[in-house]
């Protein structure tokens, strides 16, 4: 029995040593720490955001900027990370919530402890000092539709796709698009608000149906990230690349082939790299107790003249002009 416990002790010490080896990063606690917590780590979108956090750290050596996120898409895991960071005693949190509702309580506790809280992609978050949004949703929808109208020559049948009818931002985008299209009386909206569920294959099937039903359709405005891929493939396979216009939210890398073939006219997005930098910039301003004012320059491309409004709770809503519209000629500048 005695030897057994001694052996166990040694085995445990070996495990502990192994873990100490992996967990070797020591922290310098003197400088204020801004911890960015993303929805999920290891996916392209948030890897891109990490490059922004790294760049921000390089440009601002007087703070410590780090990014972490759960390995699985689970709000509970993100919650644990935030809670541990609060206990660790970071000075500011910059959170991209998986589910704003789930982390309300924890963010409130963080703020009660004097931690600066900044969020992104969560304009309904109540317990935050500042929510940073890349752009105004109505402006974005209008811009997408303006690009579509230009391609369609301001006339012809067009339709819209949303991720789901419960997706608030998507409906805001297509709503603004419809309002913009009213300026062009020859543009005729048919079968609007098709649900794509962000599934490229389902969108492809749906787009084929629409092409059969309306052979004379001229334009598509899509919302979820994978919609352009599905609709684009349908257009491409029908041999209609360049004849039908397609403008929607999408990322440059996956869309590259279809942009080249002309099936996708233009994609709209915001750069998570810049969003990460903007969140950190706002967090630093709040840490230094400096005011964030309307029309201010955060020193980040796309956030040079931000609009500051009242947010969903006590905090403020900071809206940038970080929207990017890219087409065949320009998408190569934003490869991610």
């Amino acid at each position, binding site marked *: *029995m005695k*030897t*057994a*416990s*001694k*052996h*166990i*002790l*040694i*085995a*445990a*010490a*070996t*495990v*502990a040593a*192994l*873990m*100490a080896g*992996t*967990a*070797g*990063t*020591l*922290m310098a*606690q003197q400088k204020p720490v801004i911890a960015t917590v993303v929805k999920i*780590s*290891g996916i392209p979108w948030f890897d891109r955001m990490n490059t922004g956090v790294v760049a921000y750290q390089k440009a601002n050596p007087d703070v410590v900027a*780090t990014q*972490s*996120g*759960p*390995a*699985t898409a*689970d*709000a*509970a*895991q993100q*919650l*644990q*990370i935030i*809670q*541990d*960071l*609060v*206990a*660790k*005693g970071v000075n500011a949190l910059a959170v991209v919530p998986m*589910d704003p*509702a*789930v*982390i*309300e*309580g*924890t963010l409130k*506790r963080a703020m009660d402890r004097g931690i600066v809280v900044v969020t992104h992609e969560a304009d309904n978050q109540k317990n935050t000092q500042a929510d940073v949004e890349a752009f105004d949703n109505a402006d974005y929808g209008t811009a997408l539709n303006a690009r579509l109208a230009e391609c369609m020559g301001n006339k012809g049948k067009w339709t819209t796709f949303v991720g789901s009818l*419960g997706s608030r931002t998507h409906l805001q985008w297509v709503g603004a698009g419809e309002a913009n299209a009213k300026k062009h009386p020859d543009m005729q909206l048919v079968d609007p608000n098709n649900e794509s569920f962000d599934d490229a294959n389902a969108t492809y099937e749906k787009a084929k149906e629409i092409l059969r039903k309306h052979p004379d359709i001229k334009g598509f405005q899509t919302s979820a990230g994978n919609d352009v891929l599905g609709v684009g493939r349908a257009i491409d396979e029908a041999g209609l690349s360049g004849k039908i216009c397609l403008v929607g939210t999408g990322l440059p890398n996956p869309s590259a082939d279809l942009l080249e073939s002309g099936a996708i006219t233009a994609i709209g997005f915001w750069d998570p790299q810049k969003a990460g930098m903007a969140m950190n910039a706002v967090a630093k301003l709040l840490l230094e107790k400096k005011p964030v004012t309307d029309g201010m320059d955060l020193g980040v491309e796309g956030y040079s003249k931000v609009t500051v409004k009242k947010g969903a709770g006590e905090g403020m809503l900071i809206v940038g002009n970080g929207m990017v519209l890219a087409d065949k000629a320009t998408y190569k500048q934003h490869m991610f």
Partner: protein
Amino acid sequence: MHKTSEQLIMLVVINVALLVVGAVISGGTFLSLFNFQSMASQVPEIGLLAIGVMLAMCAGNGGIDLSGIALANLSGVLSAVIVSSFLSATDNETAFSLTFMAMTVGIGLVGGVINGLLISKLNITPILCTLGTQMAFMGLAVVVSGGKAVTVGSPDLLSRIGNDMLLGLPIGFLIFAVIAAVIAAVLKFTPYGLWLMLMGTNPKAAVYAGFPRTGILVATYAISGTLSGLAGMIIAARNVNVKYDYGSSYLLIAILVVVMAGVKPEGGYGRVICVVLSAIALQLMSSLLNFGGLSNFVRDFAWGLLLLTFLAVGRYDVAGFLVPFKGQHKSSGPSPQAPKPSN
């Protein structure tokens, strides 16, 4: 007996080692009172679910409860929707809290009884049965909530359970500790506990010996369900909101906790204290890695490593194998070709 205490000692040592490593890495803040409270408030959710899985496993015959977190979410979501339809969380704070708490536990109990009846009466394999009920519970929660988060609010009593301390410990953790102690006592001192373990060891013999098989199974899954309901209540108290897909990763973590605690997957053996220590060890490790600012993928790796270590220690005399030259009793150690079973 030998093996039992070995597992327990191993868990204690691991916990202490994690604390030491944490203290070294964080320069002390890991051992601060606030961090202990923060970590303690995170343990109950997974700990309660793990005890439920342990009981189901002890029942033998491939017993397992996969429906735990789904039932916890369902109890939270359903209670929130029903209770707020006739009580206001801001006007009748105490009444709301009490009704809500009673209802979460009640729904957990009902869900657990359904599992138990399906398994004992219809003879459905536990893994398939609870997989089915897991989906059913989750689906029901989606339908009831429309797929969105439901706000419970923070009425006085409920928010205290989620946020306040008693004697320096989070109330949620105290509830967990008391429940764990009660279940440990039930397993040790009541006929039910004896029946459960014996039936898990040999189901056929148990039936011939005249054990109330149906009763034992229903009671086991009912307790597991009730624990899920309690977990749902604590989740709601902590997070103010409940959602159908909260904690989807808990399912596997709960099983990991149980296996690490040395509960026999084939049934018949398990100790609550080991499950509690194992849940605490996982919590310490994940907090430790968050303190160290490491990727969460490293955490998965470290958990896997820990699990494999435990399995190896449980099965072979690895400790002796690791230190063949320092071991005082040569006979127990240096034979890498034929590792000696530890008991």
